């Protein structure tokens, strides 16, 4: 299971106002708000915590969790500038966040013996169809290389449960991945098992 989330910083500055009345209370617990207020970079901290919640939520859905909208149901604790963890009910997961001037990318960290691949890339256009199509294409391209499969035979489809799944021809591949796009950035994370054990 894996979850990731990308935040385009410029888009967020343009389209979201975390300082609007009520926003922090809807999204963050008291202890999370305390982290934000104590931080010298409140904007970055707000959206880092947000992206951690999103990544954790996608991981949770892959584990079969029931959907919900309220971000305050996910509790975040930070360990350092890179690491933290998320708690949803009884489930907990470690999360890593990477920052550049352009984006914040958060992804869950697998505790198993897996190689995890995380990639961020620029998109050519900032509209949903392009964002989604290019992100899919990048993931398929990378999976084709790593699994040595013919790229034209790989397709991304929703399985009967509505979960995005990678298919090789008509065969469902057991690959855990997560995709995200926002503004001018796309990102994916996936797991490659090292051994069967």
């Amino acid at each position: 299971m894996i979850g990731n989330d990308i935040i385009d910083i410029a888009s967020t500055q343009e389209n979201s106002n975390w300082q609007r009345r009520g926003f922090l209370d809807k999204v963050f617990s008291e202890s999370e708000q305390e982290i934000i207020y104590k931080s010298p970079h409140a904007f970055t901290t707000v959206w880092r915590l947000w992206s951690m919640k999103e990544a954790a939520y996608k991981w949770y859905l892959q584990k079969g969790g029931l959907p919900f909208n309220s971000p305050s149901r996910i509790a975040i604790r930070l360990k350092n500038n890179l690491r933290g963890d998320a708690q949803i009910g009884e489930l907990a997961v470690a999360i890593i966040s990477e920052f550049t001037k352009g984006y914040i990318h958060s992804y869950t960290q697998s505790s198993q013996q897996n190689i995890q691949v995380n990639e961020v890339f620029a998109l050519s256009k900032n509209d949903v169809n392009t964002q989604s199509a290019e992100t899919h294409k990048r993931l398929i391209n990378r999976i084709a290389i790593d699994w040595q499969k013919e790229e034209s035979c790989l397709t991304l489809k929703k399985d009967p449960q509505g979960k995005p799944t990678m298919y090789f021809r008509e065969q469902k591949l057991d690959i855990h991945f997560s995709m995200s796009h926002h503004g001018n950035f796309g990102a994916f994370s996936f797991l490659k098992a090292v051994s069967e054990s």
Partner: protein
Amino acid sequence: MMDKVALIAELKEIIKPYVQDQEAFGKLTEETHFITDLKINSANLVDIVLDTEDKYNIEIDNDSMDKMSDVKSAIGVIEEKIAAKG
């Protein structure tokens, strides 16, 4: 109680600034899903909840927010909260 057609028209005004799929917005029905159909990003879903609270002077708690995934359920939450105000 406000009639449903008027309520949907008002809800459309609230969500309009956050919609990323205009084609789906043009074909909006009660079944239209905010995220999967209109491609509204989840941070803006919080904005929609806050805008709805402001417009109707209601409070939308976590449980109600969890229900607000599509037009129909959002209308249901608004009606319920307005009714609770008496």
